[in-house]
């Protein structure tokens, strides 16, 4: 009873505090001016977004858009290889996936698939450049720092539950190759660090980020804060009078104390899950990330990303042994993703939670980049495959890939767009670009398509020049 009461009071105070904070959050010399379009007036179909990020370039022909299966045999020609797995049916009539994705195939009646995503044409491929583009909608480099889509959402909508940070990014470490490029887009950019990602590289340790420091009892934590408060009040510096800077500092310390002292932190504790559930999800760090994403979505998360983690030449970034590695990656993602969809559906949260699965681009056995735009090859692929390690999708393909969506107003069972069945397996129907993907997410959340801030005197929109349009078909509203 008492706890409940404190919590309510706390949330009341928190929102008052964050209101006050937002009123003064513009730093002295910031160029950020106010937003010209209010977000709250638009209808929405989702409150929460979960991004399942297939980092490293997931081949669509090996996963959600299978083509003719060519089994491995010594001497097979590379150009014959379109898919290295047989097709399997899904619960949606006529929709087929690739073998190894049986669980996800079983939940496609609750979601939709876009089969015609086209990545930007950025020339000589660098994964992190395309990832930057996917997550910010701007091609790097930019003359100001572009915010991550999660930061835009955090800025526009704030947290659902005031004690759960509105932008949480899981699964990616920043000690890997291309770490600096990864950091460049895991950022709120010019919106300010306040809206930046709350990073949880290892979901199993997520709880540590929202509790008092390791080894500190709650009692000690409270006593420590009390001491600080009393010292602050006693100090002559504070008695000289207040100004906006002192107040902003004191307020931020109070917010952090309240967050860390809140019972809500339990949401981050995976050990609260029954063992069977934990085991179902636990295919590795990605699987546990899905489990934590489920808990967060059920308790008021706003934007949550779970990444299979990008590390050059690992994960989906298959420069060789493509077939065996794709098989392993499917084992990593299949069960937890399907379970996430099912669990959120059962608890009733799927209706207002938009789940998206995507990758920066696809792969192909032959083509690097896209047809007609020859870019530098990064892998030696023999014409005739004599060694199984050359069997698979080893080159970067930017002309067609798949995006999966569930919940949050998404039309169930929809198949949108199409790629060619013969090489090049490019998008040939309703091609989709990143601006549309972002605008569809904003559409679901009720964020105005022309949301912008003025930075260094010029307007900076969520999607370049504010031109992007949502794909209304995804929401069961055919485009007029």
């Amino acid at each position, binding site marked *: 009873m008492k706890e409940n009461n404190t919590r309510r009071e706390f949330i009341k105070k928190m929102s008052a505090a964050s209101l006050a904070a937002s009123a*003064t*959050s*513009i*730093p*002295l*010399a*910031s160029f950020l001016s106010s937003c010209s379009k209010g977000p709250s007036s638009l209808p929405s179909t989702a409150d929460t977004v979960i991004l399942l990020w297939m980092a490293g370039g997931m081949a669509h022909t090996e996963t959600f858009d299978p083509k003719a299966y060519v089994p491995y045999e010594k001497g097979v020609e590379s150009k014959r290889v379109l898919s290295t797995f047989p097709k399997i049916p899904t619960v949606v009539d006529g929709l087929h996936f690739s073998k190894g994705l049986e669980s996800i195939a079983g939940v496609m009646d609750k979601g939709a698939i876009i089969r015609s995503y086209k990545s930007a044409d*950025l020339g*000589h*491929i*660098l994964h992190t450049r395309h990832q930057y583009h996917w997550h910010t909608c701007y*091609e*790097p*480099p930019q*003359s*100001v*720092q572009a915010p991550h889509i999660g930061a835009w959402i955090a800025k526009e909508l704030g947290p659902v539950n005031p004690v759960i940070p509105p932008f949480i990014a899981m699964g990616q*470490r920043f000690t*890997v190759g*291309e770490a*600096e*490029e990864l*950091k*460049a887009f895991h*950022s709120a950019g010019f919106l*300010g*660090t*306040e809206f930046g990602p709350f990073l949880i590289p290892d979901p199993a*340790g997520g709880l540590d*980020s929202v509790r008092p*420091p390791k080894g500190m009892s709650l009692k*000690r934590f409270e*006593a*420590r804060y009390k*001491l*600080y408060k009393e*010292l602050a009040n*006693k*100090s002559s*510096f504070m008695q000289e009078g*207040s*100004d*906006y*800077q002192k107040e*902003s*500092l004191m*307020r931020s*310390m109070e*917010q*952090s*104390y309240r*967050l*860390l002292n809140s019972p809500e932190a339990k949401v981050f504790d995976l050990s609260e899950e029954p063992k069977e559930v934990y085991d179902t999800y636990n295919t590795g*760090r990605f699987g546990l990330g899905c489990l934590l994403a489920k808990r967060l979505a059920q308790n008021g998360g706003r934007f949550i990303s779970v990444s299979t983690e990008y*590390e050059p030449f*690992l994960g989906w970034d298959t420069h060789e042994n493509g077939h065996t*590695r794709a098989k392993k990656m499917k084992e990593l993602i299949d069960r937890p993703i399907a379970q996430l969809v099912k669990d959120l559906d059962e608890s009733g949260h799927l209706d207002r939670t938009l789940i998206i699965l995507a990758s920066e681009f696809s792969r192909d056995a032959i083509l690097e980049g896209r047809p007609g735009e020859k870019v530098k090859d990064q892998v030696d692929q023999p014409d005739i495959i004599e060694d199984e390690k050359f069997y698979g999708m080893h080159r970067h393909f930017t002309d067609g890939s798949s995006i999966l969506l569930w919940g949050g107003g998404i039309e169930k069972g929809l198949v949108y767009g199409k790629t060619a069945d013969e090489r090049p397996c490019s998008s040939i129907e309703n091609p989709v670009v990143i601006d549309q993907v972002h605008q569809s997410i904003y559409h679901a959340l009720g964020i105005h398509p022309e949301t912008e801030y003025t930075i*260094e*005197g*010029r307007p900076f929109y969520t999607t370049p020049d504010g031109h992007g349009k949502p794909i209304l078909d995804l929401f069961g509203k055919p485009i007029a």
Partner: protein
Amino acid sequence: MESFDWILQFLGRLHPLMVHFPIGLLVVALFMELLTLNGKRKGLREGIRWMVIIGAVSAILSTLFGWFLKSQDDYSGDLVDKHQYIGIATAVFSIAASILLQRTLQGKIKDFRLYRGVLMTTVILLTITGHLGANLTHGEDFLTGVLPGSDEGYDDSKGVALLAELKQVDSLDTAQQDRLNLEVRAIFAHNCYQCHSQNKQKGGLVLDSKEGVFAGGESGLSVVAGKPEESELFRRITLSPNHDEVMPKKGKVLKSSEIKLVEMWIKNGAHWSDQTLKVFPEAELALNMPSLPTSVQSHPIDKLVDSYFEEKGTEWPQEVNDHLFVRRAYLDIVGLLPSTQQIEKFVNDSDSNKREALIDSLLNDKHNYTQHWISFWNDLLRNDYSGTGFITGGRKQITDWLYNSLLTNKGYDQMVSELVNPSEASEGFIKGIEWRGVVNASQRTEMQAAQNIGQSLMGVNVKCASCHNSFVSNLTLEQSYGFASIFADSVLELNRCDKPLGRMAEVNFLYPELGEVEGESLEERLLNLAKVMVQPDNGRLYRTITNRIWQRLMGRGIIEPLDEMDNEPWNGDLLDWLAADFIESSYDLKHLIKRIMTSKTYQLRAAKYDRVEDLKADYVFTGPIVRRLSAEQFSDAVSQIVFPVYHTVEYDPSHAELKAQRVWHREVKFDRDVLPEPGKRYFRKTFSLSGGTISEATALLSVDHSYVIYVNSEKIASGNDWKRVGKYDVTQFLKPGKNVIAIEGENEGTIANPAGVLFSMKIKFETENEIQIDSDTTWKSSADIPKGEWTSIHFDDTSWNQVRNYGTANWGKLVNFNFNDENGEFARASLVKQHPFMKALGRPSRENVATTRDDNATLLQALELTNGEFFNGVLEEGAERWLKAYDKDSQKIVDNLYQQSFGRNPSEEESALLMGILGENASKEGLQDVFWSTLVLPEFQFIN
């Protein structure tokens, strides 16, 4: 049919008349209804009844007429629809209200509550409908337009004056024609460019060029010289505000003086002046050379501020005491806290000139000065030790050049010269950041150079104009491409919004009046640019840096934002005098810093501003403001007081080379080298010693995460913190012939993460000969628990693999990994690679120029301080160190902590609070908490 239409149209036009009946009647009805609450004033009832009934009827009629008006007079749009729907709802509710009232009066409904609720709703809807209707007629910003703060700030008084002047004369001379034309173009710029410019050509009409204006648009010729009545442009701007074709837009028309000016201009032949239009205010390039006012003040800055204060009616505020001054001076010049002894010495000094003497001595502390100010320059010049671009060789540091420039106090003209016309050491600045692949035309490296020179050095925004003509300054696309072409191998083709225009740029600096920069070659152009830029005539260059230094020392610039040097200064004479003085001093940055810091103005107590807005538009200077310690200052201060926050640097000014490599067991996944998994690994290095008797042998060791080290089977030591360099005397364990170093290392954590052994051993022989054994790839390792005496020289390690060098990227250079006797050094934060802790505290990632830091406290920042493992780890280690140093004497600890942190003793109250936590015998946990509570205090985190 036709005769019927006019009736509808006529009735429709009665809508604006009719709407006043329901508005008047229903609002008054509600008001009177409120008077009858609690059964009072029963006599009003009958009147109210009729008002509601007539109100409802007139509401229905209004709605009906409104509908006629819409269908006959061609209104459309969102606003009309909203007005219509809510209007219909109002009518429906008003009917409901009158029926409910009737039934209530008949006794069929028990009380008035339902009716009153409905009536209330009706009036609310009515208000909204009325407001929307007014917006339709008068424009959407009719109401809000007069609210304070929504004024667009465009001043038309100049136009009004010009109109009055020109009306007096019969025929205009050329100068007057020019002025008239420029004024008209300014009117276009403020009202029309938004849709009709080369950037956005609505209706095919372009008004920001002569050709465009006279070519007209899709509706024909816009201007017919001499004939306003035939000019489409004039027709459009003189239509009624409700007309569909009115310009600038429905509901918004030009001011009458503006319309008259346009008319006068067309009538007089629509003359087009050759002068370029300066739509936006632009600061003079040259400095005005203000003379110092006579004043009782002796310092030049104080003289100027004195007359400013006099003008504003401000009394000189008090100056800070010695305690505050010494803290300020140290933090501002060397970025460090003064030690207790340094404070005492300064406070007790009776020399009347001691403040200036302190400033001088701190400015002479070259390395510390450099290690503080380098952060400012790194931000400004977008220089960092890590970041995007390095991985593909598309970026270059200028750290070494910058460090030495500051160390030798190179003249600013020289620095600028070397930045724009660089040597290999300084070329990183104009080289920009190049990502692999194809980039947007506005982000090619030549354009980045133009943008960064513009922003950092000249305080002008070139970014907008690198994509299209700027919306925020007078810069055009031609100008920025002309500027960028200086840095290109060949002249660039113009691109608007990434689309080539088929026109080539003309090489030029942004301010051609300063001189010609064109040359035969890139080298020549850069040389010319350097000369043109650094000449004293380019006052803007020196004004910009002066303003930046002022802002650093005083908390707010004389012009804000710092990168928009065309804005109005709060004291132009002060800024220009300082800039001129800076030039006079041979561009001496230390002189500028000293000039500011020796003034009484700098030494004033911090002024209080309650709201951040007070520092913006209508700012009035009343003194310096409190400033938050930067990420680097905070980290260094904690390092000084508690325990080193950082142990490794990315840039080592001493350039001492380290031969040892950080090695670990080679780990492979899918035939790729990967990060090591957690777990124990075993390392061996065998070597032979000949050369006689060993006089001394010292080993240095750092292992991430932990180790046990053996020399020839003897256990020497163990450790679990790679940042603490183990320093061991191993003389007695070595012997002539074969020797072996064996290390059991462990990588902790739950997932793969960086790990490494760094080892160096210096062996001195009595012959004075010296050899060194370092960790490198000749070492061997195993992941399996070895069978047998693996630490012994007799162990067979032929089956072990060679280790892999894991590089330095994850660790940097350990400042204590050397054989010197000194210990306890810490790494200056400015030389440390970007780190999550500093990032949280506001150190920018230098992907773009960052000329100011966010000094606002954020939640993520507070979280990092409150539960961040990193910061709490530092406090824990510090607590151990202090307990030893002060023998757990709590009172001593508390006194020392306050003296070192704040330069003062704790008050009795403070002391009591702290002692309450610590007790007589301080515990580690207690002390850790005392550290935390002290270091996060505002008094510590601010420069007062």
